[in-house]
């Protein structure tokens, strides 16, 4: 009896020790993640300049944005942008990961080259592409005009027809290596005997992919999909540098709208309220993915 009580005490004591060890991490998380998050929610209930004006307005900021049709248009545009970019990442990521998942000599060099877009800062990539797309001096127009595909320079970032798709293209180019790397890691973890067994059973390549590769990658895909979607849903840098959200509002993503509301129009309360809505949308996307891709 006494022995069992002692063991129980030891267990309790052991559990407490665990808490002591996670305490620093807990504080760090609170300071760096929880506090800023809660502070953002707090600001959304004020009309404030963050320095000396703090007028409590209740849910007025939320009411203002949720009754504004333009806000929904921007959210829809951002969703469309995220779907196209993430879709592009997965398509290219899958193809390249498959191509790289072979034991061919010199493959490491290709892997390094294909990873390059991921290594460059977003602002640098945006500036490079801005000049590539420049109507007068840009490489793209030069090539197209040289081969006779167009006779006049095209305004890639300044016209309704092209601006959005060019932005999507640059974002796909920048982001596919992350998806490619994750899928490649997943592919390399699949047990090779599964494929051997499938081949003995005479299954086709497509069936291999459908019944072995995809199910084995499910957990990797879920994490990658959530991370990639949320990342691009709140993307700002390249859209701002390339188009400033224009022409008109053709590439005005929600992050640009929030940025302008806060740092150009000094309406921090409204910007914070918009950020809270974006947070909720991202949370919903994450839940949706988890539900759809849940392991049976």
């Amino acid at each position, binding site marked *: 009896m006494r022995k069992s009580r002692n063991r129980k005490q*030891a267990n309790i004591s052991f559990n407490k020790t665990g808490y*002591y060890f996670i305490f620093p991490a807990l*504080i760090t998380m609170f300071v760096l993640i929880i506090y800023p998050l809660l502070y953002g929610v707090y600001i959304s209930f004020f009309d404030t300049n*963050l320095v000396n*004006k703090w007028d409590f307005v209740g849910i007025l900021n939320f009411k203002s944005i949720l009754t504004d049709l333009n806000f929904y248009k921007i959210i829809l545009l951002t969703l469309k942008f995220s779907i196209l970019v993430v879709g592009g990442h997965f398509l290219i990521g899958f193809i390249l990961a498959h191509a790289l998942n072979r034991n061919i000599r010199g493959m490491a060099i290709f892997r390094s080259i294909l990873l390059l877009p991921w290594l460059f800062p977003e602002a640098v990539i945006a500036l490079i592409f801005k000049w590539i797309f420049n109507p007068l*001096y840009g490489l793209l127009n030069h090539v197209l005009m040289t081969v006779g595909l167009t006779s*006049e320079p095209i305004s890639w970032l300044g*016209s*309704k027809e092209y601006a959005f798709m060019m932005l999507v293209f640059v974002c796909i180019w920048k982001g596919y290596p992350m998806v490619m790397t994750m899928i490649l890691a997943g592919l390399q973890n699949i047990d090779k005997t599964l494929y051997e067994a499938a081949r003995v059973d005479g299954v086709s390549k497509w069936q291999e992919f459908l019944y072995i590769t995809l199910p084995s990658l499910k957990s990797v895909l879920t994490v990658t999909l959530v991370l990639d979607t949320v990342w691009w849903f709140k993307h700002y840098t390249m859209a701002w540098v390339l188009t400033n959200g224009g022409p*008109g509002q053709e590439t005005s993503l929600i992050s640009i709208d929030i940025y302008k509301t806060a740092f150009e129009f000094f309406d921090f309360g409204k910007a914070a309220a918009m950020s809270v809505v974006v947070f909720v949308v991202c949370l919903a996307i994450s839940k949706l993915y988890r539900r759809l891709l849940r392991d049976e």
Partner: protein
Amino acid sequence: MKYRKLTAVLMAMTMVAALFTGCGSKTEEPAQTPAGQEAQGGDEKSDSGKADGEPITIQVMSGMMGEKVEGAIEQEIADDFMEKNPNIKIEFIPMSTNDVQKKIITLATGDSLPDVVGVQPTWLAQFEEMGIFEDLRPMMGEEYVNTYFEGALYEASVGDKILMFPWLCTPTALLYRADWFEEEGIQPPSNWDEFLEAAKKMTKDTDGDGKIDRWGFSMVGTRNNSGESRFVAMSRTWGVDEVVDNNGTWESGFTSPEFENFLTYFTDLNNEYGVVPPGAVETGYAEAVNYFSTEKTAMMITGSNAIGVIKSQNPEVGEKMASCMLPTGTTSCSATGIGGYAISATSEHKEEALEYLKFTLLPENILKFAEGTGRMPTQKDVMQDEMFNQEIFKGYVAMLDKPYKQPVFPGYVELLDVAGEAYSNIMGTGQSVEDAMKVVKEKTEAILAENNK
């Protein structure tokens, strides 16, 4: 058991201590000045409370330090000051001009503004509301204040307070290729009809390959401060005030027929007449200047600061250009376009900061700056220098006699964005002027209503 528990607690405490020590260690490292000198001490904001004999560090957040020509001259002046005042060290925080406003807000909310901050008049109303800058009038003294142009002082003030040291000005005028105008046998335009005619004549195929390769007007059509400020500089001459204070009620000319007429004229330059290079709405200031300096365009509406940039990009073009007044519509006017420095209200070295700013404004320094960059003085006597009789400054000097007094309106930047959205939509998405005007009216009225509460 007790020992294990104690060890765990001690380790946890050590980790927490290490965490915070790690976070705090940066402030103990000496800061590096652009000249590669080490600043003294670890106070992030400035070196207060030094022992006798140790220099005081004045931190200067400068939008011009990021520019090639301006940055070099500003550093040169600061080095000269430090040599003459070994007890004061100037430490620059370079910043892109377009980012300064955001950076100021971020630093102000963290109560960590540098001692001296580069600012533009457009933002002063908001900054005054935040109470983050010192009123410079009592520090400067009336005698010193009176050395400035009235227009420069007006733009640097909010009410009776002078919030920024008017360092230099860049009035808006028309920069043009004098040699091409001479070749065509035409005079620089004095009104907007002549401007359009001149732009049409300058737009041509110069190498005979059947394609237009030179355009009349380097339009800055981006939906940002660069584009919008030029747009309203032009619209003012059509009799459109962005905002006016009518006995305590804010009103805007953006809802007027004059604005609609100007919006039509402005966007037709691209849509109808094709006198601007392709991609107007993606052409920012940098691209527009680049087109001018690479001989792709003949005219540009810009501040005098473009002179320095064009000269540095292509000295040959620099020799061939001249300036004239902005074409007149129903009136002729230009904002002084001052730029300058404010002193942070929380600075512990206000006197030293003022001493430095006054030094930078000594005639020899400001003339050195004007010669290199094209940015002009804000002090009356310095403007008498013969440098400003040159053809290149002629239009800018003339515009200084037509100062436009823009009221300090808290929603000004938002209002500018309404104009930016309108021309961007018309030129970039093919929206009609009528539809764009509906949005302009709706948004303008909402902004006015918000500020008339």
